[in-house]
């Protein structure tokens, strides 16, 4: 505990991070479980602890479109959403990345209707991996706060100029209280200077933005966009080190390994469930099981090198995710397997999907996954629904 320790929810941590990043304009529309973020930011503006314009927009589509307007003249924009709201923005997500507007957005990971559920899974943001946004997934409230500040630094880098989505699990993180360390504003100001860009409209140098192209030119713009997000890996790693040096917290860039060195089985996963996995690893290691965790932090850009490195050391990977691409498998699993293609490795991989609509992924569930990975030489099911309670067509 220090003078800067605060006991806050994930949503409040996000709002505090956003305030420290000094956005010029916040445009947001309420949706559970993101709501507290915009409530707190409204409070900050009212009590003058944040000097920003607040646009009370009439939809998420407008929240993102307005953020693009803000960014188009070189101002800093922040918004936050979740689930159906994120999908309502989908058109604008592609638009913002194509326009190279470094908007930062928090997404509270939540299930998608139907059936309706306000609780968490990650089908919303994982369904939008192709929208050209950098996507990070946080494990706790502290990481969420820190990532909002890092997000602007990375997104606004002239080599990157790509919008940034900070994902935190609905309710498990958004509504759970934890102690966090609040960075000093002065230090944040030093780390994150004012946004300067040439990619803007101005009276000194008038520009036409978001233009159209003929088939001769379009692909070049898309190629440059892809290169920028690929190259952001270096910026992400460097920013993480710089942040750690100033604030004392390192997140190890694209991924984090936990007890993987001598592991026989490693769970690859993302988001808040990493905390539970760590606890199970500690318990099982006491019993003699050699198990580990690869925490994927960034889904875009994808940590291809880190996945390959772990596969060279461990030949048994279980990909755990709160997501399914209906008719195939979990998208994280697809991405992990594709990173391994071309490596001549004898490696066993399996996909564990679950936690849909807020269902808890318990310590027992994770233990069973490790046991399944260790005890079975080969798998009957490529994709396994953890804790499944019905057979097909039974409901």
């Amino acid at each position, binding site marked *: 505990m220090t003078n800067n320790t605060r006991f806050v929810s994930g949503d409040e941590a996000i709002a505090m991070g956003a305030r420290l990043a000094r956005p*010029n*304009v916040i*445009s947001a529309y309420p949706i559970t479980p993101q709501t507290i973020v915009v409530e707190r930011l409204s409070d900050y503006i009212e009590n003058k602890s944040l000097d*920003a*314009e607040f*646009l*009370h*927009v*009439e*939809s998420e*589509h*407008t929240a993102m*479109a*307005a*953020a*693009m*307007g*803000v*960014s*188009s*003249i*070189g*101002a800093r*924009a922040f918004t936050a959403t979740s689930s159906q709201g994120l999908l309502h923005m989908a*058109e*604008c997500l592609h*638009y913002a990345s194509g326009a190279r507007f470094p908007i930062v957005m928090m997404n509270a990971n939540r299930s998608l209707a139907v059936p309706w559920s306000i609780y968490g899974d990650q089908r919303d943001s994982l369904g939008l991996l192709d929208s050209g946004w950098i996507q990070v997934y946080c494990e706790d409230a502290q990481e969420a706060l820190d990532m909002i500040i890092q997000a602007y630094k990375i997104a606004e880098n002239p080599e990157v100029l790509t919008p940034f989505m900070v994902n935190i699990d609905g309710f498990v993180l958004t509504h759970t209280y934890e102690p966090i360390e609040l960075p000093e504003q002065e230090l944040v100001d030093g780390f994150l200077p004012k946004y300067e860009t040439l990619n803007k*409209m*101005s*009276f000194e140098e*008038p*520009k*036409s*933005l*978001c*233009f*159209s*192209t*003929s088939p001769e*030119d379009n692909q070049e713009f898309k190629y440059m966009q892809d290169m920028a997000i690929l190259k952001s890996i270096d910026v992400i790693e460097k920013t993480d080190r710089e942040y750690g040096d100033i604030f004392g917290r390192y997140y190890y860039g694209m991924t984090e390994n936990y007890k993987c060195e001598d592991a026989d089985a490693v769970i690859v996963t993302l988001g808040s469930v990493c905390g539970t996995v760590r606890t199970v690893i500690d318990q099982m290691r006491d019993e003699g099981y050699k198990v580990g965790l690869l925490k994927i932090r960034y889904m875009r850009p994808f940590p291809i090198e880190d996945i390959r490195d772990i596969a060279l050391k461990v030949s048994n990977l279980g990909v755990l995710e709160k997501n399914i691409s209906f008719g195939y498998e979990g998208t994280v699993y697809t991405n992990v397997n594709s990173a391994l293609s071309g490596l001549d490795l004898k490696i066993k991989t399996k996909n564990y999907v679950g936690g849909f609509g807020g269902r808890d992924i318990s310590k027992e569930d994770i233990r069973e996954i490790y046991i399944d990975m260790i005890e079975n030489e080969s798998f009957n099911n490529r994709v396994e629904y953890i804790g499944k309670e019905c057979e097909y067509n039974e409901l």
Partner: protein
Amino acid sequence: MNYNIRAKDLPEQEFHYGHKACAGCGATIALRLAMKVLGERTFSALPANCMSAVSFIYPQMAFTTNAMITPFPSTAAVMSGITAGAKALGIKNFKTVGFAGDGGTADIGIQALSGAIDRGDEMVYICYDNEAYMNTGIQKSGLTPYGTKTTTTPAGENLPGSIKHKKNMFEIVAAHEISYAATASIGYPNDFLMKVNKAKNTKGTSYIHVFASCPTGWGAKTEMTVDIAKEVVDCGLWYLAEYENGEFKLNKNPKEFSSVKSYLSKQSRFKHLKEEDLEVIINHRNKKWKKIRNNWVF
């Protein structure tokens, strides 16, 4: 305050040229005139529409001033963002300007427009109304009038083309208690210029709905663009009006309407109309004018 601008007082400087619009395009007339009033210190936002399609083809940009294309539903939303961002950055003496078509305004863009007016965001939103989705090839919009043949309202044995009258956008906008709203036509350019000038000098949100003929979509002669836009006002199928301080004001009250039939006959989109359709159109006009004359100031 007198906001009149004579054509000869307009700057010679052009702010929008070198575009790829059709011959006789009415929308480009509206845009060109408006920009001459609004000038250099502007940020323009255009959704996916004819004006953006012909003005932003990389690397040939038709605006000499700041301009951007927005998502189709988001003209007013992006404008709100620009205004808020500029305010936060301390930029002074500027106008955020929108040029959206009838579909981009009355259909897909109406929610964002309503939100912006509700917030009172500082902007001049200009709807150029050519009465159908022209950029995609003449499909019916919410502002397509009764009896119009479009590619989605074909005229045949069973239907007279479009079977709905125009959505009442001007009054919908006014119902928000907007700072300033007006209707105009490129057939009455002095009136249009005055209204753009007034909007430019209005605090809060302004909306101008300008009738802009489309020879390509209407099957009209290209040299008739301005004449048709004048005749539509003279025959009473369009009207010149303003809304400010909570009051509607009619700017032009024709003693006698010119012939509706003559107006319609200049455009092949109406050539299939029968006498009974003409009656529907005239009855609807008369009802509208009765309401206007009973309730509006003139």
